[in-house]
């Protein structure tokens, strides 16, 4: 088994672990963390795809590598928005759960 395959399998586990956390954790901050775990897994899988496509003297296919960079920055922006929403919500209500709907 190559290192790329090893990390590909790790990415599959990361997605699973993150998905589990996203479903079972009631706390929004934990959900945000779990979303980032999934994101890490998805990006890693893309990196593995890039590594497998090494050719033309490059250590990896540059197209998926560039997509990962775009993806990481977008995921950060999403995390920041979610975290700030959560902080504002908890300031308004004095707690930070999503319970209590109409």
């Amino acid at each position, binding site marked *: 088994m190559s290192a790329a395959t090893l990390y590909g399998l790790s990415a599959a586990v990361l*997605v699973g672990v993150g998905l589990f956390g*996203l479903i079972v954790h009631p706390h*929004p901050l934990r*959900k*945000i963390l779990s*979303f980032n775990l*999934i*994101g890490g897994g*998805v990006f890693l*899988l*893309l990196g*593995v*795809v890039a590594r*497998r*496509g090494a050719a033309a003297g490059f250590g990896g296919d540059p*197209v*998926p590598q560039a*997509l990962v960079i*775009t*993806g990481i920055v*977008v995921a950060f*922006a*999403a995390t920041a*928005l*979610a975290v700030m*929403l*959560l902080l*504002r*919500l908890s300031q*308004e*209500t004095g707690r930070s759960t*999503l319970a*209590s*709907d*109409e």
Partner: protein
Amino acid sequence: MPYSATAGGFLLVLAIVLPVAGVLIALLFGRRYAERIALAVMPFGLAVAIAIAVAVSNTRQVLQYVIGGWQPPLGVALRADGLSAAMMVTAALLIPAIGLYARPQFSQPPGTERRAPLVFWILLLAVWAALNAVFLGADLFNLFVALELLTFAAVPLVCLDGRAETLAAALRYLLFALLGSALYLLGAVLLYGAYGTLDIALLSARVRPEPAAWAALSLMTVGLLAKAALYPLHLWLPPAHAGAPAPASAVLSGLVVKAPFFLVVRLWFDVMPRLPDRAAAQVLGVLAAVAILFGSLLALRQVRLKLLIAYSTVAQIGYLFLIFPLAGGARVGHPWITSAWTGGVLQAISHAFAKAAMFMAAGLIYEALGHDRIAGLAGVGKALPITVFAFGLGGMSLMGLPPSGGFVAKAMLLTAAVADGQWWWAVVVLAGGVLAGGYVFLVLARALADPSEPLALLAYISRTRQAVVLVLALFAVLLGFVPLRPWELLLIGRPDAAAMAFR
């Protein structure tokens, strides 16, 4: 298969660049300029959308543009077929109307800058840019960025008023949307890993029925369903759409939820037309049917007008997804494939107009009464006759009464269902119409009743705003006068009829 640039391809770039430039310049100048820039961009954006629709319809060909001259798979292309053109024109008609409606609500006092108006005008343009990018995208990762653009534009619209409930609704919407994006991207990664491209046209030639393609299709579909709020992933929608200010609700319910639906259509019909089999299409159909019945029943039980309209969106989204079992369940060459196809798309368009009109009418009622409790609506019909009439017209389209866009859409879905022997979908369509009739009449009966005590209006509602709402509702009705047959425009750029049918 290299993309060849078509005449008028630059229009596709303009459709995205115009509102993007508007967003940036509005942020730069802020204050009252944000509103002026947004309103100034609108006629140009509308002209571009119409020009694209005319070009597609005249040439009977897909408009294409290769960005930077870098051919896919290395580069990224934009592409407008008949479906894109129709959706773009819908957005380009709705957004200026919403802008006109929102002016009194989101005007800046001279000399200063308040938060909500600045954010509203910038995000209205941003939603438009994102929608156009979704409708024109021909590359799965480019579409991912467009979807994120849409999410970031839509979520803050939900909590413009800063109340705790709307903040919670916005956070839940964001979490659903982010999960959807992650699953969508995961599917795109699998496709790149298996086929080495993200370009839709190249993928459609390369995809074979194998595990990677199946997994990608499932992951991306589920992710997009979370964003489109199809049952059982609808939980975030009612509080978000009902909590937003009325013009924002109109954008969210009328347009934003159509974007992920549009992408599911792209995936199933354009990216992997030969992949999904009838069983998969039936699964989507079942979810659609539950959404129609469940959403309508919950709408009937609401005590607040905006929540009723929001639950009705959950139901109407269900109709959209009937396109999959109906346009996919037929054998090659049968005419009802195109019938179901037109019905589904027409449902998306007429619901956009009808639902926007209804949310905006509800907003005016809220401004006038200071509440939107359905039980307290008595007398509104006399006080705001135009608004209530517009609400009724929108409701007519939701019920599927003739003449209205909703009638044509649902009649075509019905025809397709009956002709193909899938009568159970026809039953669902009819039942959904009856239930919609129930909740629309519930509201109208209250609004037209005589009040027990004279109604005191808190605010004057200008004729202009009522007229805008009425015009949108009339658009939904006028769509009902199109002939009851497949639209040619919507079929431009479709792969041949054989490819439209699933295995």
